[in-house]
């Protein structure tokens, strides 16, 4: 008997791969598609839990019109974009700077690396409370530091003024999440083959040129992934706003995430909150799609 024939692997029936992949598909549908489709359906219904525990009728685009004409959506979108874009940019820049320092083998770096991850492990609500105390105009650390440096503060306090409140929220976020960038980018920098760096040194490349032409291009994929992750997280900023400012003063720190909480869990307008959710899904996916398209074009 031909031994090659005897050891030929059995051919699986065509349905087996589908069967094997089906748990993942079911899970994906249950956890992602179903809630989104449920929200989509609700967004076309008038459903306010203060009025009735069940939907009260189909109202077409009514919820979308209310969300867009109420004046809150665009103000909240602007605040959200500001926090997201500026926050991601600052956290990336600072995180990269810290990562570049971390790759140098100097004494105390191991301890620094361990300490660095700590802010990221604290719940945002707790960070919010910490900063609420630190921003307290009657003896908080930050006003004291700024005043000592001769920087004038608004009389209402940092969180009480519409010109500074949003930046205060952003600062708390930067404090918490810059280490996350630093750790991930540090891992990226460690993965660069040392011979490439060595070759650049022999060619007398300046540190700036090494950074811009060698290091950043080589960690670009890692950087893009972490930027996208933080972009999406920042776009949904809610907990810090809730604890620090409750969206105020006025609407100056109201983000889309906070508005969603207000409409859904305070006003209990499920229809309106669902419409807002979909508007957010569309906006954030459009931005991420653009980011992916431009960032990963060359890799594809």
């Amino acid at each position, binding site marked *: 008997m031909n031994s090659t024939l005897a050891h030929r692997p059995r051919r699986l029936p065509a349905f087996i791969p589908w069967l094997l992949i089906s748990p993942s598909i079911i899970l994906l549908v249950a956890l992602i598609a179903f809630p989104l489709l449920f929200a989509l359906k609700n967004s076309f219904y008038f459903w306010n839990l*203060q009025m009735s525990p069940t939907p009260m009728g189909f109202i077409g685009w009514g919820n979308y019109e209310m969300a867009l004409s109420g004046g809150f959506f665009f103000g909240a979108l602007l605040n959200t974009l500001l926090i997201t874009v500026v926050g991601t940019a600052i956290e990336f820049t600072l995180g990269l700077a810290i990562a570049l320092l971390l790759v140098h083998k100097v004494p105390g770096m191991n301890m620094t690396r361990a300490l660095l991850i700590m802010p990221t492990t604290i719940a945002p609500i707790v960070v919010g409370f910490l900063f609420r105390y630190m921003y307290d105009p009657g003896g908080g650390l930050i006003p004291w530091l700024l005043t000592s440096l001769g920087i004038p503060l608004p009389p209402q306090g940092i969180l009480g003024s519409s010109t500074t409140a949003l930046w205060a929220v952003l600062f708390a976020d930067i404090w918490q999440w810059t280490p996350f960038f630093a750790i991930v980018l540090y891992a990226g920098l460690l993965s660069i083959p040392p011979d490439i760096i060595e070759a650049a040194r022999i060619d007398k490349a300046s540190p700036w040129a090494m950074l811009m032409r060698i290091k950043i291009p080589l960690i670009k994929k890692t950087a893009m992934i972490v930027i996208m992750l933080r972009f999406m997280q920042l776009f949904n900023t809610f907990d810090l706003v809730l604890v620090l400012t409750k969206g105020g003063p006025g609407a100056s720190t109201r983000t889309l995430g906070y508005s969603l909480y207000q409409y859904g*869990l305070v*006003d209990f307008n499920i229809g309106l909150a669902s419409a807002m959710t979909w508007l957010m899904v569309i906006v954030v996916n459009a931005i991420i799609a653009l980011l992916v398209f431009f960032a990963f074009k060359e890799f594809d």
Partner: protein
Amino acid sequence: MMTTPKISRRTVLKSGAALAGTSALGLKPRRASAQDKTLRVLLAGDPFYYAIEGLADQFQQATGIKLQIEAISLEALQARLTSSFISNQPDADVISVDQMWLGQYLESKWILPLNEFIKADKDTDIADYVPQALYSMNTWRGQVGTLPVATYGQTVLYYKDYVEQAGVKIPTDGSWSWADYLAIVEKLNGKDFSGAKMAGTVVSGQQPAPVVHMFTQLAASMGTHWFKQFPTGKWDFEPTIDSPETLEALKTFQALYKNSPPEAVGYNWFDAGMRFAKGDIGIFYWWTPYAYLCKKDGYMTGKDSVIADKIGIARLPTAPGKKQVVSIGGHSLGIAGNTQNRDAAWQFIKWATSAKTQKEMALFNKFGYQFSDFARPSLYKDPDLIKIYPHLPGQLADLEEGNGKIVRPPCPVYTTLEGIYGLNLNKVLSGELTPEQCLKETSVFFQTILKGNFLIPYQQASYDDTLDATKALMASLA
């Protein structure tokens, strides 16, 4: 010699299935039964909770029912309860129900009406309630949905030593106007006292609820209404907040903020109270629990504040020619509609709201005496209590001038309206809107929301919800 047991694939699969089945059976949630003598109580974390928790053993000893008490913030409570009822997942047997949610909860059958419980149980002593309190907090369309466990009015508190030194006379009996009040605040503002720069007053400016709670007291006192006709007569939710009276009230409120620490724009209820307790504020008006809370330097710290024995209390000012309307708020207990322990839940509500327990709550001294929020007139005349809480007679007089349904009307979309109102009031304080713009914009938003929720025009049945109707209801249940 040991032999390795042979395990077939089939055996592994069988064992796995058996294990999964057993786990699934083990993890199946146990349903609460009537015999289960543990009562779950979900409360808002206000001062009354600490007193109830401190006395819980008494209830357990008297009834044999174990208590599992949990307290959370009001916002979290509302979100958790709504989620529990919508998904029909029982969360607690007895729940704190805010007066603003009462109609929604009763109409959705999320709580049980208490009329029959009260009628069948004379121990409730329904006649010993301030009718204005029950009217404001506990009745909806002729039904008692909850009973009050902590009842608040609003009152004026002032720093006696500072006011005396400034040569200001405060009429404590309420014979003063809001214009007088503002003049006093202005006179007290900006002076030095005991090494501190004094502010005339402090407001609670945080949006949405705190600023609405404070402003609406002033506005109602000046004769304003939110709607054309509610809760009496034929309901008409056409907004009336853009009125000359509300504008005058808002200008007064803005002037009060100008004599307040600027950071008060972000102060919640407690921030405002504790700022007064710090001793750099002359006078302010707020919910009655601050008469005892401000004696301490923090929430349930037990440590006296610098003004502990220097707090003066006065009745609220009025507006010339207007009948005084005092805000009534607080916390009430209801029986969750999906509970299996109705009778035990009723036993607990009856116990917690009884005159005996309420008095013991007032005498409970763990963090200092931290409860004087009664709805029962008999307790306001109790010499033991008056000795500890000398402000009680004035508080009762305030409650008797109270009407929570005018100050903050419990209409079906109240929290949405409060959200808008609070936001725009806060914008006035932060200078983003003028009072005129605020009221105009808020009125337009109110209209949009009320129309969007099919409340304008109002086509459902109205209910002539008067204080007299509540008095008649109380008489019928007594």
